């Protein structure tokens, strides 16, 4: 499993952010061709993003591009421009229909095939920014094998729910729970929306702790200063790491002896617990992962 604690949005027509964003150490970057780019600058941003993807350096970051929504006439040109650059994935905004995700999967296969990129390499991250999108989240998450994560929206979703932002985002409790449930049922990541108040560190920490407890694997980020706080919340404590190490070691020992059951600290440990312990070590940077 890949670490996706933080995904930093980088405006697609801003060279400074596009070239330097990864230096702030997020797990992933999102080069944004959608909301961050004025309609009159879509063409220039596309060229700039293409060249940054081709010639720039993103270190170990997972590189994704947020394309324009599929109800516009921009999305096809977006993917034709960025997918041949060999990106890790695309973010589709305002997904409501599983058929759109399947259609996107086919379009990506065609482009990958022409560009000599392994078919299936480009993952899909779905932004669910309407009530209908949230309601259909499981069908959307399972509409293509490429789907790596589903993400609830923030402001767009609030508007569609005919509500407004409250201090603790009570209005998004239901949607977030649905997305987590659907994501884990479908075997994809649940990634939370941005925390818009970039000066409120305590609020960001509180919200991150809450969404982690719900079952989210990370959050989108709109300011580099938010990255260390979110990483801190998602990074296991020394006690959790020690316990995880004991579980993983005991499981390896049992496997070597051909035993199924493992006992750690006087308690029986089964496979899901071992998997969780492995994930804890991965979050702590002590174990590498390779899955979607």
């Amino acid at each position, binding site marked *: 499993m890949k670490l996706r604690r933080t995904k930093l949005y980088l405006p697609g027509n801003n*060279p400074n952010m596009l070239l330097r964003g990864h230096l702030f150490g997020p797990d992933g970057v999102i080069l944004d061709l959608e909301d961050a780019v004025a309609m009159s600058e879509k063409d*220039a941003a596309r060229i700039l993003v293409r060249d940054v993807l081709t010639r720039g350096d993103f270190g170990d970051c997972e590189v994704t591009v947020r394309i324009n929504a599929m109800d516009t006439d921009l999305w096809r040109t977006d993917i034709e421009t960025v997918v041949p650059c060999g990106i890790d994935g695309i973010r589709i905004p305002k997904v409501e229909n599983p058929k759109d995700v399947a259609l996107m999967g086919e379009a990506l296969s065609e482009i990958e095939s022409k560009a000599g990129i392994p078919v299936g390499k480009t993952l899909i991250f779905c932004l669910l920014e309407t009530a209908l999108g949230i309601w259909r989240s499981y069908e959307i998450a399972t509409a293509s094998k490429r789907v790596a994560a589903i993400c609830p929206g923030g402001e767009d979703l609030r508007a569609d729910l005919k509500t407004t932002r409250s201090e603790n985002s009570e209005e998004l409790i239901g949607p977030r729970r649905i997305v987590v449930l659907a994501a884990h049922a479908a075997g994809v990541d649940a990634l939370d929306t941005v925390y818009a108040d970039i000066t409120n560190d305590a609020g960001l920490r509180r919200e991150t702790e809450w969404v982690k407890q719900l079952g989210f694997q990370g959050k989108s980020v709109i300011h580099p200063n938010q990255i260390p706080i979110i990483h801190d919340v998602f990074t296991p404590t020394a006690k959790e790491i020690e316990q995880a190490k004991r579980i993983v070691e005991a499981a390896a020992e049992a496997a070597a002896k051909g035993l199924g059951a493992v006992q750690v600290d006087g308690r029986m440990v089964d496979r899901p617990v071992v998997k969780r312990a492995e994930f804890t070590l991965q979050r702590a940077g002590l174990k590498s992962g390779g899955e979607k």
Partner: protein
Amino acid sequence: MQTAQAGTLESMDCIVTVSESEKGRGITVSMEGASVARFGEAIVSSTKDTLKKMGVLDISVSVQDNGAGDLVLRARVEAAATRLLGGDAR
């Protein structure tokens, strides 16, 4: 005369303005900005190379630089020239 423009004066960016030239006049490049004294030759070379790859042989280019590297300069030149060729002048 048709002109087109791309880019901004934000840090690490540049504004590239292109305008039509008579056939046979070639590519002419004028520049302004703090980096011109040190990187002027490189700016001219990258600008001409980008335009030639696009098949543009006669054009007048003005670059207002605010620390754009080669990558950004080339992207802005391509965007401006594409707008000019596509008739999307601004």
